[in-house]
């Protein structure tokens, strides 16, 4: 029997970005909040200090900041007819672990989705007709609009000190920014970061080709910043150790550098690290959560009763807890029925590597930051006419070279031997004159009937709980999209003067061993119809009204941007609804 702890007003599962945001918002209401985090406490000077954090082997190759697959993992298969097998080393994505979550080791790319992204099905059907969409594509509208989320995007950007150039200020297109973005109420809190040579060269070539390049919105500070909570960040040093690493000099927005210093001072906030929540408990009606059960490092089981439960774990773990706790109807792809596990998506990433004349081009790729870069948005979302191309979706593309780290940064021209003296010579010759963006083409992945999450029938975790099974493959729509975008991207590098441009299209089948991004989305999506969504438009469970589920698991499909800005905006949006409405009258915030 688990031992029972004194009841709390709110139990938050996972202390990453959304957990920190919700904890801070709800403690402001005077609620007694506990956040239960599976991984360890992490802080800048104690856990990723400047005298050792630039260790590519330790963090990038050996995955120090990520979940250990030995603690828990997933099984994977491409097709419903395949047998899924457990993932034993991370590849396509990196499940975060520990306080700060993915906010510790992200790059800081802080995008907003396009207004049309939130009404994807309505918009695309209106423009191209229903038959233009593949029959098994299950994209849907979000139930919120860009206008709903704008104030919350703004709040997150000011929390983070996002560095960028506005492209659309209250409807007026601004020079130097992204002309396709939705209207923003005010400029970014900080000017864009300075761009290294290759990024500037990319922007010039893109401009010459008729595009409108702009700096990527960045959570790396272009200057010292004090956020509205009073927390300080320092100027970025362009060291090139962002993604996969914690920032050692307080220059990358993370829960540690923006919220936690304020949160830990509050008497009505408590954090339990190294405690893994194993289920959400329900009362006998099954319609009310009574709290959560977690296990500590000694293997002791504890029950934490709470009036309000907020899931803030990584996408797949949110879905797993819902499935294991019997909340919502599990998705059945054969019957096309149920919602938990439905509309699971990732991203469609590709790259080009380009080789320049080394007597003329010296790029110094090590001068970088995680969210530095010059981008174009002409081929994102529905910013262009898809009619002639036979696919929907798109992505931003850019020279987003985030580092020149020695183990990874070894681009060599095709035909070079894979090892030995000739390979070494080619690395030496290419290091300063070749370009390989971190994520060059950042394409959307739309949702499909046969891409989903469920509980694996065979494999269990150390507690005997079923692992989540991922069933995922690329569909023709995404492959076509990627070919089109990658070709456009390569043209820009040619215009920059590259002698050789090597395109690396994204190929089917989906490869779980090749890193794309950690942007897994969906599985517990928001919407306006309980038949096709797990959550209402306030991220509240349709089935258990005192349960809210944050994070990208709520995305009905994934857009051509990094998800953090949007999932954080959704967290503030949901927090506002809880504060303004739910707490006054606990119960469903939306009726069908």
């Amino acid at each position: 029997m688990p031992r029972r702890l004194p009841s709390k007003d709110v139990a938050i599962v996972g202390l990453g970005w959304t957990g920190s945001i919700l904890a801070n918002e709800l403690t402001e209401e005077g609620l007694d909040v506990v956040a239960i985090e599976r991984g360890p406490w992490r802080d800048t000077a104690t856990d990723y200090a400047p005298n050792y954090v630039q260790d590519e082997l330790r963090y990038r190759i050996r995955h120090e900041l990520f979940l250990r697959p030995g603690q828990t993992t997933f099984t994977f298969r491409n097709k419903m007819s395949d047998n899924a097998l457990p993932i034993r080393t991370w590849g396509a994505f990196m499940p975060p672990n520990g306080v700060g979550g993915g906010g510790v080791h992200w790059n800081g790319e802080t995008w907003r989705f396009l207004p049309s992204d939130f009404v994807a099905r309505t918009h695309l059907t209106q423009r191209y007709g229903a038959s233009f969409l593949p029959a098994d594509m299950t994209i849907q509208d979000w139930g919120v609009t860009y206008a709903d989320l704008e104030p919350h995007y703004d709040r997150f950007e000011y929390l983070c000190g996002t560095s960028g150039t506005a492209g659309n200020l209250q409807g007026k297109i601004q020079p130097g920014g992204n002309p396709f973005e939705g209207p923003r109420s005010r400029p970014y809190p900080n000017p864009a970061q300075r761009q290294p040579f290759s990024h500037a060269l990319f922007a010039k070539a893109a401009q010459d080709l008729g595009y409108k390049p702009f700096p990527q919105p960045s959570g790396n500070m272009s200057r010292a910043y004090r956020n509205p909570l009073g927390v300080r960040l320092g100027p970025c040093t362009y060291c090139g150790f962002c993604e996969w690493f914690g920032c050692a000099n307080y220059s990358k927005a993370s829960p540690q550098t923006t919220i936690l210093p304020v949160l830990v001072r509050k008497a009505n906030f408590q954090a339990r690290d190294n405690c893994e929540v194993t289920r959400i408990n329900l009362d006998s009606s099954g319609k009310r959560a009574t709290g959560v059960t977690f296990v500590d490092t000694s293997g002791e089981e504890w029950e934490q009763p709470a009036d309000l439960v907020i899931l803030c774990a990584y996408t797949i773990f949110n879905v797993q807890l819902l499935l294991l706790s019997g909340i919502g109807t599990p998705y059945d792809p054969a019957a096309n029925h149920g919602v938990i596990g439905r509309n699971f998506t990732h991203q469609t990433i590709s790259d080009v590597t380009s080789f320049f004349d080394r007597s003329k081009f010296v790029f110094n790729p090590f001068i970088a930051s995680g969210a530095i870069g010059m981008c174009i948005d002409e081929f994102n979302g529905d910013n262009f006419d898809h009619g002639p191309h036979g696919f929907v979706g798109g992505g931003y593309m850019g020279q987003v070279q985030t580092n020149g780290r020695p183990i990874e940064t070894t681009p060599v021209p095709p035909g070079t031997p894979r090892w030995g003296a000739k390979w070494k010579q080619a690395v030496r010759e290419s290091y300063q004159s070749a370009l390989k963006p971190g994520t060059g083409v950042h394409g959307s992945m739309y949702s499909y009937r046969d891409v989903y999450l469920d509980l694996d029938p065979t494999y269990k975790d150390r507690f005997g709980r079923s692992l989540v099974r991922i069933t995922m493959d690329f569909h023709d729509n995404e492959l076509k999209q990627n070919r089109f975008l990658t070709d456009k991207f390569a043209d820009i590098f040619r215009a920059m003067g590259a002698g050789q441009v090597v395109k690396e299209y994204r190929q089917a089948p989906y490869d779980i061993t090749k890193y794309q991004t950690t942007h897994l989305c969906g599985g517990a999506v928001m919407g306006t119809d309980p038949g096709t969504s797990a959550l209402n438009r306030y991220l509240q469970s349709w089935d258990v009204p005192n349960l809210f589920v944050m994070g990208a698991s709520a995305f009905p499909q994934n857009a051509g941007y990094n998800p953090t800005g949007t999932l954080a905006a959704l967290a503030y949006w949901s927090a506002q609804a809880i504060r303004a409405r739910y707490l006054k009258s606990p119960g469903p915030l939306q009726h069908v």
Partner: protein
Amino acid sequence: MCERCKAHLAVVGRLALLLACPVLTRAGNLPSGQDFTQIDRGRYLTAVADCAACHTLTGDYPFAGGRPIETPFGIVAAPNITPDRASGIGNWTEKQFDVALRAGRRPDGKMLYPAMPFQYYTRLNDADVQAIWAYLKTLEPLHHEVETNRLHFPYDIRAGMRLWDALYFKPGVFKPDPGKSPQWNRGAYLVVGPGHCAACHTPKGILGDDQEKQRFQGYSLQGWFAPSITNDPARGLGNWSSQDLIEYLRTGHNRFAGASGPMAEEVAHSSSKMTEEDLAAIAVYLKDQPGQGTVGKPVSPGNGMMTAGSAIYQDLCAACHRADGTGSAYLIPDLARSSAVASREPTSVLRVIIQGARTVGTRDEPTAPAMPPFGWQLSDPQIAAVSTYVRNSWGHAASATAASDVRKARKDLKSHTQ
């Protein structure tokens, strides 16, 4: 209300008090001891005097004592000052409290060790002592026996304090300087009296006695160097405006520095709770304190220690503190204008390099940035070189740090309990 009625009510009120507390009597026209204004003033003065720093071990048991205080002579633990009758001061009279606070003598006649800064509290005026007493009596009595005397022989013999008192203790309430402004005098009172700044910041003789001629010019204790708080531009606060000083005391941070170590505690428990007026008065007084003047010649940039130190600095320190030492305001301390770096002794510099340090988080500056330790990474000669470099760059001048200083600092740090 007519005068007669007032007088009548006063008689009734006093009578009621007498009936309620038949044992307690008070002399003269003093407030009742239940007076809100007096209790609240006592609460404020208790914060100014930073009583909690020593008398509170954890926030769950305020003023219940037990916190060990490191002195060069051994450990003294602060007693329980809650009104518990058995283990606290619940049986004391106000007079006994006054004698302990301002004369360093316990009700049993034994002498207090000057870890209790009675040589500064003796400057407190009567009303402030009464207010502190009134406040302490409102605390929840907590039963907590504390073994206070853990000193080495012969300092553990309390009678030795008689000699110390005779030599060094100069009792007496603060006397305002009529030639100075009321604000200056208020600042002086706070600094030399309840604030007891000299306890850390004034150099001491071999028996812990203040060296008055070097008042506020800095002193090493508990593995830190409490820097000069005079207006000396080279080693003290000369580069700071009054506003910088007020901000530092209130928030623990300003554009140059962040408080860590014992000063972090002082800010958290004491100066962050002081009024803006009192902080301004302290600033006026401290900015009027003369420094030591010249600091001598810096170690030559051509010196091998400086070359090595510069290389280590650029490699390991410059990412945060910047090549020119200026750091980032309110986040990364400005080494070029740091009195801790420019101090006579490298104690704090060595400690922070070896062990790292976390600055204080306050309501107004919650960030609490920290410096990681480098002691595991750098050898004694390397730390000596980087210490020499930062202490002789950007206008600073100090003697070179020797590898043996670093070895000694490492040994000292191991001996500290906090």
